[in-house]
């Protein structure tokens, strides 16, 4: 195999469609003058954070022309009337709770679905929602981790202390190691809530076909097979009756992995009930209050270390705000608790967390999925040790790195997939060297002095992370060479902008020896690949990329077997170049056969309908002495395979940032941002860099701007893009310097590791480090322990840490 496209900056095939306005997102399905008859749904959502529902009166709705259906919980029956699935039932999740498709008796967050209306259009559906009268008996809301931990009030009356789960893991005896360490310190660290906020919210369209007894559902999800199974189970249908198609998705970032949303069940149920196409498209406010959030955690760290800053014992306790329900189990806090370790090897480690209920939107993974919090905790600890010892922050990190000759490195813990936390490969010292060079770490003190002479405050920070990517259980792929010579590829996981149609076609083009333009990739369509898990945990390239590579190789084997027969040559002597199989070393055109013809030969036909098929009828092909299809063979030029790794592969990286803080206004400005990234072998560096740049921007939002502002009654007061400060171009670094290290993964055939989430993981950590560094000469003892941080909060921290002899004044006098 000659590798041609793997590793190249191949422009994306999907761009043509998107740039011409021909993308097909879920709200684009079945629209326009020719698609009359689509009905639209709207949902009545709780305006209260915690209340008992006393009565729901829908009588006024019935007067409105164009309203077809109104449902409350009383209208649901069977499995639809039961709580939604608890998707990941971790054994330690002793008090898992999920909501109902429509609230039964009680609401537990502002935004919880209470009633569902279907009408001729969304305007009428919303009119109808506005006429539903609900009377409530108010209950005291539990808001924020302090409220949840205090447990003066309970979110669910049968969940004592608001504790959904408590989980502890330990490797060695951390408390003893800390007790006998020469130095110790402790830290309290918090991170506030944020959310994925893709530009496209949730949406579902369903069409019930009574003639064939099939349901087709289009939904904006990160797992079409998951939604399919949920619909079949909840609507009492056979799996084979339900097709789920994930069209183009306008961003996911984690939130769309949770499923089934109430609407993903109510829409198909309404379509079947009414015999009409039904569509639900979420609006922005609904996305803020009824999808999912993440990040909110409080942490306490105790650490014991030696004179070199080497960690002898690390003891971390943290509290995770899981919101009102726990459909996605304990994935986020488990990831925090394990990925916190980053590239380091503490002598002993203990972690304990509690996952707590609050009367707020539920929490499911958001890009990074608990890693940003873990990285922030570990890196703040590293900075604190360096400060206490008066050492350079990079030196302390170096003293704790797992060394390149120590892989595979087993942390003695269990990861989110129930497998050992065992790193496969990496080279952290090399990454740090690259980062220091890229950001100019050693030159920074001179720069700081130069800036100080201009009365400017600057600081530098760094943060290192390791990211378990490509978790199981598996993904699969189907590769089909048609008689035209075109190659059709299907994998079941979904796409939200990562360029899968391009990178997967690169892999197939290389493996099969066909032109890239002849490869077409379909993702997230259960009709094309019914076995799949989903797109999360930076797993698509690793999992589906590997499966597609394996399936393409299987197809190639079949091509060579048939071509060898036709060309009367040995398979070993054949090569495939530009879609033509030929005997190596023979002149062009002699002893060759194109893939389309091989496809014809692979499928012996009874009927001819064109020239190609005429060549494949039983009169033309095959040995009359043998069955047309050999006993152990199948017709068709296809290959299918699955990839199921023993455990995750661990990508890594380090970020550094130089910030300037305004001495008067505390405004925080980014002067330089540097990224060193190791995701194994790169399929398409252009796309990987795009992922990093996007991740960094999202990280800047999370570190400096974005937070979910709940008031004490549980109202989300900034539930719009006016008030939730998602970065525009004006807030992100103008340039990001990126350097790659490629440490191949030994766990998969292509040596790749995931790249999707990396950019966002170290953001809170790296900004806290840099801002603290900028302030250190002026406000000793000013520690950044709560993120995100706004200029007002930095200003308040300054007030709380009165300045020493101001360096600026001295220099400027």
């Amino acid at each position, binding site marked *: 195999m000659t590798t041609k496209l793997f590793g190249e900056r191949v422009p994306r095939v999907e761009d043509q469609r998107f740039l011409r306005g021909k993308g097909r997102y879920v709200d684009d399905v079945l*629209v326009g*003058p020719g698609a009359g008859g689509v009905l639209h749904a709207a949902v009545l959502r709780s305006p209260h954070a915690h209340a008992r529902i006393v009565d729901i009166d829908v009588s006024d709705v019935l007067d409105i022309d164009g309203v077809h259906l109104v449902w409350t919980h009383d209208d649901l029956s069977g499995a639809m009337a039961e709580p939604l699935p608890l998707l990941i039932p971790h054994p330690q999740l002793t008090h898992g709770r999920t909501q109902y498709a429509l609230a039964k008796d009680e609401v537990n967050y502002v935004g919880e679905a209470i009633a569902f209306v279907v009408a001729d259009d969304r305007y009428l559906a919303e009119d109808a929602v506005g006429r539903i009268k609900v009377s409530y008996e108010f209950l005291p809301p539990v808001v924020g981790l302090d409220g949840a931990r205090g447990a003066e009030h309970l979110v669910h009356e049968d969940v004592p202390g608001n504790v959904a789960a408590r989980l502890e893991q330990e490797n060695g005896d951390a408390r003893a190691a800390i007790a006998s360490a020469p130095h110790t310190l402790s830290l309290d660290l918090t991170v506030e809530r944020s959310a994925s906020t893709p530009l496209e919210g949730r949406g579902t369209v369903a069409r019930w076909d009574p003639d064939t007894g099939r349901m087709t559902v289009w939904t904006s999800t990160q797992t079409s097979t998951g939604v399919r199974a949920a619909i079949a189970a909840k609507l009492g249908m056979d799996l084979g009756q339900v097709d789920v198609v994930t069209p183009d998705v306008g961003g996911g970032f984690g939130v769309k992995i949770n499923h089934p949303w109430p609407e993903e069940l109510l829409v198909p149920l309404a379509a079947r009930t009414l015999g009409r196409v039904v569509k639900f498209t979420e609006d*922005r406010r609904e996305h803020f209050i009824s999808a999912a959030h993440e990040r909110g955690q409080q942490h306490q760290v105790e650490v014991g270390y030696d004179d070199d800053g080497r960690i002898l014992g690390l003891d971390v306790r943290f509290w995770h705000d899981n919101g009102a329900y726990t459909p996605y189990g304990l994935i986020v806090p488990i990831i925090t608790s394990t990925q916190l370790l980053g590239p380091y090897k503490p002598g002993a480690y203990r972690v304990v967390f509690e996952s707590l209920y609050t009367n707020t939107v539920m929490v499911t993974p958001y890009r990074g999925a608990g890693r940003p919090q873990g990285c922030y905790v570990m890196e703040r600890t590293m900075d604190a040790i360096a400060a206490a010892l008066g050492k350079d922050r990079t030196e302390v990190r170096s003293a704790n790195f797992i060394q390149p000759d120590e892989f595979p490195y087993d942390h003695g813990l269990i990861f989110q997939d129930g497998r050992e936390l065992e790193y496969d490969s990496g080279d952290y010292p090399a990454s740090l060297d690259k980062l220091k060079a890229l950001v100019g770490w050693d030159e920074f003190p001179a720069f700081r002095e130069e800036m100080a002479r201009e009365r400017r405050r600057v600081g530098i920070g760094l943060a290192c992370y390791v990211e378990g990517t490509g978790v199981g259980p598996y993904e699969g792929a189907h590769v089909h060479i048609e008689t035209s010579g075109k190659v059709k590829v299907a994998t079941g996981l979904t796409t939200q*902008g*990562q360029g899968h149609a391009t990178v997967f076609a690169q892999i197939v083009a290389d493996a099969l020896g066909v032109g890239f333009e002849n490869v077409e990739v379909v993702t997230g369509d259960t009709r094309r690949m019914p076995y799949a898990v989903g797109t999360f945990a930076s797993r698509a390239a690793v999992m589906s990329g590997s499966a597609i590579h394996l399936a393409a190789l299987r197809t190639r084997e079949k091509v060579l077997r048939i071509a060898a027969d036709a060309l009367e040559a040995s398979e070993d002597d054949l090569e495939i170049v530009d879609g033509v199989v030929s005997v190596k070393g023979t002149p062009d055109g002699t002893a060759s056969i194109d893939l389309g013809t091989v496809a014809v030969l692979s499928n012996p036909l009874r009927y001819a309908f064109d020239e190609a098929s005429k060549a494949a009828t039983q009169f033309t092909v095959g040995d009359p002495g043998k069955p047309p299809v050999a006993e152990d063979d199948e017709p068709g030029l296809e290959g299918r395979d699955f990839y199921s790794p023993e455990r995750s592969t661990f990508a890594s990286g380090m970020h550094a940032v130089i910030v300037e803080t305004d001495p008067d206004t505390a405004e925080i400005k980014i002067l330089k941002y540097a990224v060193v990234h190791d995701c194994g072998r790169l399929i398409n560096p252009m796309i990987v860099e795009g992922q990093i740049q*996007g991740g960094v921007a999202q990280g800047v939002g999370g570190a400096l701007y974005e937070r979910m502002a709940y008031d004490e009654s549980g109202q989300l007061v900034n539930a719009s893009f006016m008030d939730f400060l998602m970065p525009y171009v004006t807030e*992100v670094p103008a340039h990001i310097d990126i350097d790659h290290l490629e440490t191949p993964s030994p766990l998969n055939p292509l040596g790749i590791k995931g790249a999707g989430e990396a950019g966002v993981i170290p953001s809170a950590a790296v900004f806290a480090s840099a801002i603290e560094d900028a302030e250190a000469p002026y406000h000793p003892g000013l520690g950044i322990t709560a993120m995100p941080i706004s200029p007002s909060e930095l200003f308040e921290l300054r007030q709380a840490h009165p300045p020493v002899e101001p360096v600026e004044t001295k220099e400027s006098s």
Partner: protein
Amino acid sequence: MSEELVDIRLTVNDVVHALRVPARRLLSDALRHDLGLTGTHVGCEHGVCGACTVLVDGRPMRSCLMFAVSAVDTEITTVEGLAEDDGSPEGRLGPVQQAFVECHGLQCGFCTPGFLTTITAGLKHNPEPTEDEAREMIAGNLCRCTGYANIVRSVLRAAEIASERP
């Protein structure tokens, strides 16, 4: 109770469409759901994200903040109208679209139509923007995927392509 409907004509990408809509129907919904021009996307419905930006008489406007009835007697350009006629069925990509391909200026593609229309109008106004001006040009549109760096590059590249084309 049923709604009063208004007969209107909308001129979109040089084609005149006759429509009967309620007075409250948003221009974005009329374009998408009544005319089937789904290239215009709706990201927030409160005028902040810019995904629904279309050109009204050449000027970028948030179609989620306009009623369809107030767009009569205007020339509307949507993303579907940005390709250039070169005799091929689909036309060739306009300079801004072409620049987005070359600079990897999009990922999920949802915000992209709003950027394309905004930049098209911006380059008419300022055909040779500096990098700072390019950033300013797109400072009212949200993108959650790209981190904007490649969109800024796309603006600069689009200016080059436009100047190279006759």
